């Protein structure tokens, strides 16, 4: 047993069973733990209470339009990769009460939603998803306005990151320099080996959560095995997205015939926008009592693939699927950069896996580039 807490920046080894104590420490500190769980034949993100909730021994198989959960390496808790859920559903909930309105004596009063959000600890955040959180930070925290709902969740967040031990054919984080290696912005980061976790301490809060765990300074052997594991993952990544000519490539090709071609395959289902960890668009709706005197205003995720999204009085500014797919892709890979200083894509590959017809954003860009204007 180590007598004191590790320094920030230290590399440690931790017996896998000791992660249970980290979870207990987080819970004792008031955190609600969110991590991967096996549910409905998919690995989703939900509340976890202990190590046994993690999908030990399971991994996913991903391809364009395909996802299967299959047995993986027995002793591994984090053998899987990103699934249909992303962390945005906790920081930027799919449904969020904004405020209430009440009518008394002929006048309205407006009351902000005051319930304090849970303090979340995210367990098993991949490098691409850490980057995605940083991208949404720019949208909700760094602009002229600050979203208090996002800010409250974000500021109390604890991040336990995981270096990916393998890559899926849909992964392309390397092209966007967002992974697979976790490089910062975490409290604790672990690399899973067959027998132990190799742990990196990213913050004081992270160090604090190692109280009463049997951590040891990482041996040179463990550290190099952890390095090797990430290197191997990196070499597994085959998918590429060239970014050096973005955003210009897309701005110069807004009338490219490929937009018509992809519109014939796209179903406008909006899956890509829902699974995307950076997509942030929302709409609002009111629900009132029958008398219309008590109203609750709710913010909901929206998708630029719906017709309603671009409705204006007397018409619609993007009536065609071609226009809507073009909006989505040019936002991700062009205008996002103008708006927020980085692309809106982190290379997680979710939009490719969860597209029911297997449209690959990487292939669409390639096709546009091949016959670019």
């Amino acid at each position, binding site marked *: 047993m180590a007598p004191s807490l590790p320094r920030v920046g230290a590399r440690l080894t931790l017996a896998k069973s000791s992660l249970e104590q980290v979870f207990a420490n987080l819970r004792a500190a008031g955190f609600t733990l969110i991590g991967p769980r096996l549910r409905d034949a998919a690995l989703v993100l939900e509340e976890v209470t202990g190590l046994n909730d993690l999908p030990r021994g399971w991994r996913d198989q991903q391809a364009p339009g395909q996802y299967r959960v299959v047995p993986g390496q027995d002793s591994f808790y984090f053998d899987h990769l990103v699934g249909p859920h992303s962390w945005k559903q906790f920081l930027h909930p799919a449904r969020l009460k904004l405020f209430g309105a009440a009518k008394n004596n002929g006048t*309205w009063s407006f009351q902000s939603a005051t319930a304090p959000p849970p303090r979340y600890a995210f367990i098993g955040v991949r490098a691409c998803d850490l980057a995605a959180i940083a991208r949404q930070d720019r949208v909700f925290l760094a602009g*002229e306005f600050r979203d208090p709902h996002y800010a409250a969740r974000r500021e109390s967040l604890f991040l336990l990151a995981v270096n990916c031990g393998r890559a899926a054919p849909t992964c392309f984080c390397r092209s966007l320099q967002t992974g697979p290696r976790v490089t910062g912005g975490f409290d604790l980061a672990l690399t899973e080996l067959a027998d132990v976790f190799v742990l990196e301490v990213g913050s004081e809060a992270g160090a604090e959560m190692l109280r009463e765990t049997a951590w040891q300074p990482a041996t040179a052997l463990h550290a190099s095995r952890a390095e090797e594991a990430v290197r191997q993952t990196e070499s597994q990544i085959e998918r590429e997205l060239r970014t050096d000519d973005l955003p210009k490539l897309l701005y110069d090709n807004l009338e490219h015939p490929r937009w018509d071609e992809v519109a014939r395959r796209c179903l406008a289902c909006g899956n890509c926008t829902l699974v995307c960890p950076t997509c942030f668009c*929302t709409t*609002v709706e009111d629900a009132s009592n029958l008398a219309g005197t008590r109203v609750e205003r709710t913010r909901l995720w929206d998708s630029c693939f719906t017709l309603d999204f*671009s409705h204006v*009085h007397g018409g619609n500014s993007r009536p065609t699927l071609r226009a809507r797919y073009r909006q989505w892709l040019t936002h991700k890979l062009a205008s996002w950069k103008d708006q927020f200083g980085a692309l809106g894509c982190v290379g997680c590959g979710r939009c490719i896996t969860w597209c029911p017809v297997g449209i690959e954003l990487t292939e669409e860009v390639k096709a546009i580039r091949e016959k670019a204007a």
Partner: protein
Amino acid sequence: MSVSFTPAAVRARADPMLPGLAVVRGVKPEAYGVSTFSLALADPAEAAAYRFLPGQFNMLYLPGFGEVAISVSSDPFEPQLIGHTIRFAGSVTRGLARLQPGDALGLRGPYGSAWPLEQARGRDLVIVAGGIGLAPLRPVVLSVLRERAAYGRVLLLYGGRTPPDLLYTEEFERWQAAGIETHVTVDRASEDWRGQVGVVPQLFYRIRLDPRRTVVFTCGPEIMMRFVIYEALARRLPKEGVYLSMERNMKCAVGFCGHCQFGPTFLCRQGPVLNFAAIEPFFGREDF
């Protein structure tokens, strides 16, 4: 690119989506299906601090119906009474149509960019509006009238579908007398109409302008603005001298909802008033 002039106090609100309470002080029918609502903020401190610039908009909220982005159409020098000229076109505006003096609603703002009046000072200004598009330009006219001598020639080119659709016509005489050269046209004339018939961009053929000293502000249907810009550029106006006010679906006005994107532009932040040169690659593009 134009910039947002949203006041610091509006930006600093703890919850930017939470409206303030406003009360209807007056309702003035302007045309069929169009009325101007004069609103006052209920909180005396908020009302006293409220300022807006010509071209900016507020989010008006009717609980149970929803929220809409509406330009301020009243005098920026009298910001305690906030005028909104509203065409009853959708579910929220049809709800707003029922409001009577004394009724309450939600209001937050002002948001967005403003017409760059400072660029028009000492120069000629051509204001070109179609239909309800005159509403966000009325504060420009009223601001010019406060300081008429600061500007060169000021022209208003305005058109509507039919004569009864024209807004603020009872003010035109005063504007004209105060030195705003006003040209009006309608798409379809009635029997008693003695004015021009035809689309707004054609009014350019009735005026002479000096491209070296002219600034154009335009607001109306996009198809109208396209041809207004065409006529202005055909008269050798630089692209940088043309400003337009754009409209897209808008849910939040604070850059979170994503609906009002026009290429890289968030119309709620860099817009609604934009310099043509900055958006030229996207403007007029089909289904964009």
